[in-house]
């Protein structure tokens, strides 16, 4: 019995070890490093006592709160990277804050069909229960896509971001 337990522990250790290796290897071969963070804005005081809006990690989020997703990408490959597309589904239980998506040097498009098709805001189309086209609402947005203009050279980095409200 004891022997069996030991063997089990060894198996678990090996599994853990191999998953660590996998992660390290996976990171090593990815020349674009992505960092996704979620934050919220709080009112704080600067050193002169003035009100300033500060971003803090999204730790105390309750329904109705707005959070900001910021993705940083950094390129470390030797050869330039091309055809760069960043995509992000609007998380479950949240509603996109229309107009909040940003990203320097990118073309921003949206999906209202879970990422099957992407369009600029003006070309998004949704239908009502009777199949008639209706005005688009914030809740219709399902995905955001940023297409980078041009290519990334070694050391290039940038950020894209958008905001959602927790239902």
């Amino acid at each position: 019995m004891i022997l069996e337990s030991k063997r089990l522990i060894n198996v678990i250790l090996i599994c853990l070890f191999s998953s660590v290796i996998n992660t390290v290897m996976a990171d090593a071969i990815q020349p674009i490093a992505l960092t996704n963070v979620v934050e919220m804005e709080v009112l704080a005081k600067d050193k002169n006592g003035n009100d300033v809006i500060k971003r803090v990690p999204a730790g105390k989020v309750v329904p109705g709160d707005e959070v900001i997703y910021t993705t940083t990408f950094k390129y470390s490959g030797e050869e330039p990277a091309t055809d760069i597309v960043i995509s992000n589904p609007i998380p479950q239980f949240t509603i996109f804050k229309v107009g909040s998506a940003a990203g320097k040097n990118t073309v921003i498009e949206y999906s209202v069909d879970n990422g099957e098709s992407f369009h600029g805001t003006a070309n998004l189309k949704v239908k009502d229960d009777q199949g008639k086209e209706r005005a688009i609402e914030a809740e219709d947005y399902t995905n955001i896509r940023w297409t980078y203009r041009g290519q990334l050279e070694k050391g290039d980095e940038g950020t894209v971001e958008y905001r959602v409200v927790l239902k």
Partner: protein
Amino acid sequence: MRHSIVQNLINISLFLIAINNAAYALGTPAGTVISNTVTVEYNQNGSPQTSTDTVVFSVQEIIDVNLVSQDASNVLVLTSSLDQVLTFLVTNIGNGIEEFSFAFDASPIGTDDFDPTNLRIFIDSNNNGVFDTGGIDVEHIPALNDVSLDANGVDSQVIFIVGDIPPALIDGDEGLIEITANATTAGAAGSTPGTILVGLGDGGVDALVGLTEASVDTPGTYEVASLIDVNITKNAQVIDDTAGGGSCTTAPCSPIPGAIIQYSLDVVASGIDTAANVVITDAIPTDTTYEPSSITLNGIPLTDSSVDADAGFIAANVITVNLGDLTNADNHTITFNVVIN
């Protein structure tokens, strides 16, 4: 093959979203983990590459409560009466399961005439909306039988204030009370909105005190009244004198022979309990003749016959209208016309 697995995963997750939205229309439940994965796709040396990163946060619990009176107006009571009932509804409008306890104030700030005595709080244990005695509805003892309610306004509980009314009060005397519902999470009730209660939310997430400060005070008022009283006010006006040779068709006209008088009876009930089977009778005045088919009740014509289903008739020169049971504030207007002989 790979595509079909991904497709299945998408289908499953869509199904989960639909279920969750239906169950939690008001706010995302406390403890829900919100996960977001960003993906970048690109080409390097002509070969496609993908990289992802996932970030999560947990939804914290917000503690909020709503408590509203279910009485449409002041509750009418007799002086020197026992176990008079005020009715309230408590609702959990936070996003986590929460327990609530209740307290009363027999003499809150505000103008009134008396303080009810022997006040107690009861829970509508059988959820029939009516106070039941004999141990059916249980008396509330804070910390012993606090009320646990599910999140997001889907769960409510009727609560009663039961009290005695002192003797020697007069009609119109008011007794104001106040009932308070408090969330029982330690440190929540009465704290400033935004106060963080570390680890005290559902599933160990932090709890935040909401805009209601996790505590609501709601007033209720007893008003002393007599037993039911039915008042009748009778008015008469001449509405047409053309048949008598005049030219007036709008009241007031001249009370000449042939002119039409309209009688109007306003019936108003006030007080406690029910006046059962109220029947109004009025004799046609001497020297006048009833104008056929002129009885109305609340503007609706009644026939002159006593053998049909409507509420009124004329027999032996007496108008009869059956108003049925009347309770406080019920009012009816009866009219009929006569011609001056």
